[in-house]
């Protein structure tokens, strides 16, 4: 019995040592460079694309021995070519380490490239074995290369900072986060249009930094237009994706700020026999007063009512603005077409060819219900 146990233990140890190294696929950390962010732009002048790859410098920790540590721990590689895999292989002429895409955080598309259509570029990211389906997609309002060249104060690798920024957008609910999976699903469905978050460069400060604001609407895979922050908020209200944020209202001369505690939205299309579509959007929100100025003369319950009405108006305006903008672009970003397809597939078949025209004529009925639930720590700041 003991003999068998020893043999078993030795066999298992051998199996683990020999197989868990990955055979020919084993890669040591010092032979790869981890790609943190990728940018794709239209190549200047000629056809093709320019790819910018941001790579984090892994390796040497100084253990406090060296007093001056390098300020930047990232490197940007940029090359132009016809196909993405071709460019990456071209980069092997320059890089001493193999590029590893498994930890890629996002892919940014430059504005020109986004307007041309990004489907050919997405093929590589879907087909390759190392790239993953949950990388974020972003559109830049200039070029992707510029965004990746912008340094950040908070992190030695700007791409990681930008990835964290994407994750933190839930705090303001004025930007969307889309990954490749969502984008491709929406792009391929006939009744939806995808949206991608916009990243811009803020040049007002001495050192330029990036900021995420608004979103870009896509028709299939081509970008057709931008939407501002209030419109994006309207989109998030309708799609039930509000996490947190503030609603700023002005009652009379004063401005007040209410925090979104809970928010939900539902969009329901209705189809009648003549293929006439009516859409009703219902939004409910629970807000809490976080800043109130200039309403001391008003009795507190009435002040609450005034704020409630003002909030309902603001939210309604934003939802309306977003819907109208999407109609101008002719992009069904809410997926109304898909919802119709789910319930009435036969009627959808007859409508889908001129869905854009039908969509542009829809007049939504928007109802907003706001409940101002708590005033914060004080009731009213009396004079």
């Amino acid at each position, binding site marked *: 019995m003991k003999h068998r146990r020893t043999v078993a233990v030795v066999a298992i140890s051998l199996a683990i040592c020999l197989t868990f190294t990955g055979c020919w*696929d084993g890669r040591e950390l010092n032979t790869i460079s981890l790609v943190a962010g990728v940018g794709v732009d239209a190549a200047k002048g000629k056809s093709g694309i320019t790819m910018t790859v941001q790579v984090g410098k892994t390796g040497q920790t100084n253990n406090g021995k060296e007093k001056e540590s390098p300020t930047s721990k990232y490197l940007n590689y940029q090359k132009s070519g016809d196909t993405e895999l071709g460019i990456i292989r071209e980069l092997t002429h320059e890089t001493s380490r193999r590029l590893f895409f498994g930890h890629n955080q996002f892919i940014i598309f430059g504005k020109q490239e986004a307007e041309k259509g990004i489907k050919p570029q997405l093929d590589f990211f879907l087909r390759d*074995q190392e790239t993953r389906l*949950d990388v974020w997609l972003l559109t830049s309002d200039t070029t992707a290369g510029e965004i990746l060249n912008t340094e950040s104060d908070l992190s030695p690798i700007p791409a990681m900072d930008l990835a964290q920024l994407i994750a933190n957008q839930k705090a303001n609910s004025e930007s969307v986060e889309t990954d490749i999976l969502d984008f491709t*699903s929406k792009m391929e469905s006939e009744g939806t249009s995808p949206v991608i978050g916009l990243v811009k460069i803020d040049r007002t400060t001495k050192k330029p930094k990036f900021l995420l604001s608004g979103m870009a609407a896509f028709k299939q895979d081509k970008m057709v237009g931008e939407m501002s922050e209030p419109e994006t908020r309207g989109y998030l209200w309708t799609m039930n994706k509000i996490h947190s944020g503030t609603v700023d209202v002005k009652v009379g001369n004063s401005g007040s700020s209410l925090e979104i505690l809970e928010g939900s939205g539902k969009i329901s299309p209705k189809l009648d026999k003549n293929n006439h579509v009516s859409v009703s959007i219902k939004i409910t929100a629970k807000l809490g007063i976080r800043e109130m100025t200039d309403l001391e003369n008003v009795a507190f319950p009435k002040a609450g009512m005034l704020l409630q009405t003002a909030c309902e108006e603001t939210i309604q305006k934003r939802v309306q603005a977003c819907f109208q903008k999407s109609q101008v672009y002719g992009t069904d970003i809410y997926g109304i077409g*898909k919802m119709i397809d*789910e319930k009435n*597939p036969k009627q959808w078949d007859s409508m889908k060819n001129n869905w854009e025209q039908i969509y542009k004529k829809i007049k939504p009925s928007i109802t907003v219900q706001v409940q101002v639930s708590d005033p914060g720590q004080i009731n009213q700041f009396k004079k």
Partner: protein
Amino acid sequence: MKVGSSVNHDKITASQFMFAIVCYVESFALLTAFSLTVTHQDTWIAFLLGMVGALPMIFINLYLIKQYPNQNLIQINRVVYGKPVGSLISVLYCWYFLTLCSLNLRDTGDFLRMSVMSETPSIFIKIPFLVLCSYAVLKGLKIIVRYSTVFAYIGFFALILTTILVSRRMNYHNLFPVLTTSPVKLLQCINMVMTIPFGTSIFLMIAPAVQDQKKVKKSFLTGFFVGALVILIVVIRDIVVLGKISEELVLPSYETMCLSGVTETFQRLDILYVILLVILEYFKISLLFYATSVAISQLLSLKSYKPLVLVIGALILVYSFIIFPSSIVHLAVTQTTIPVLWLLFEYIFPFVTFLCTKLRARKEVPAIKS
């Protein structure tokens, strides 16, 4: 029966038999791409209907097991059809089990290459795998199915855990609109599902080894339903998480696992899923390998199947390279020709055997009466 004396010594319990069936059916989770590319979001309907369609054949198989106790498929063929025709049909079945085994080995090698080890030549993966399977087959059926219970339970646990881990990405609207695929495609998928995962004629080779023959019916049906339920949940989960892109992915359930993750720690657990699938494939290949060896040795009236095991292993390995030149051809042929071809082995032959058995029983009864 003179032949195959070493086969009759191998006895397995009814519960091991049941879990062997569960592992066999569950391993199809690797290959759901074949069906998802045909019927898209209605694949789960095809699976349900395929389950229903497979039931008559399971009952026919159970009837044959009951009528010919302790006799496996080759022996049954010999008894029913007589030596010449029976041997011919048995030769076809030997080829069938050999092909199934090679196809599964090819799928395992391709899966490992496409998901984790893209540069290692598949032969270096297949040789150790086959060595392990040969060892198990040489030691006997008992050893092959010994761990089926453990791995079936691990499979359930993994299914529940992984479904919870991807729950935040589920979008039930991906299942709609329902039943918009053409009836021909739906029929094609039902055919594929009935023959590939739910094709259980191999268990006619293994059922005689069950100790308590009375429990075979219950074990067979329970194993089949449990395995089918697991596959159904996997397919629904893949459609719900991946949406439209599930039609185009080569390994949809693997990609679902790549997306899994709750917090920063429990992210990207696809490698554990790969290990589980490889283990389930080990069961399937070992069972098929055993069935092939026993079938060939019984057909040729050898005393024992053991000498031929390693040689058949080499044949399976080389066959797995010859069988298809590329995975694109593999996908095309599996969706178009193989469902029809496998119908012959899984449905037509057992049905004819069933009819012959019934006719013979009817002939004997008047003979006894008179």
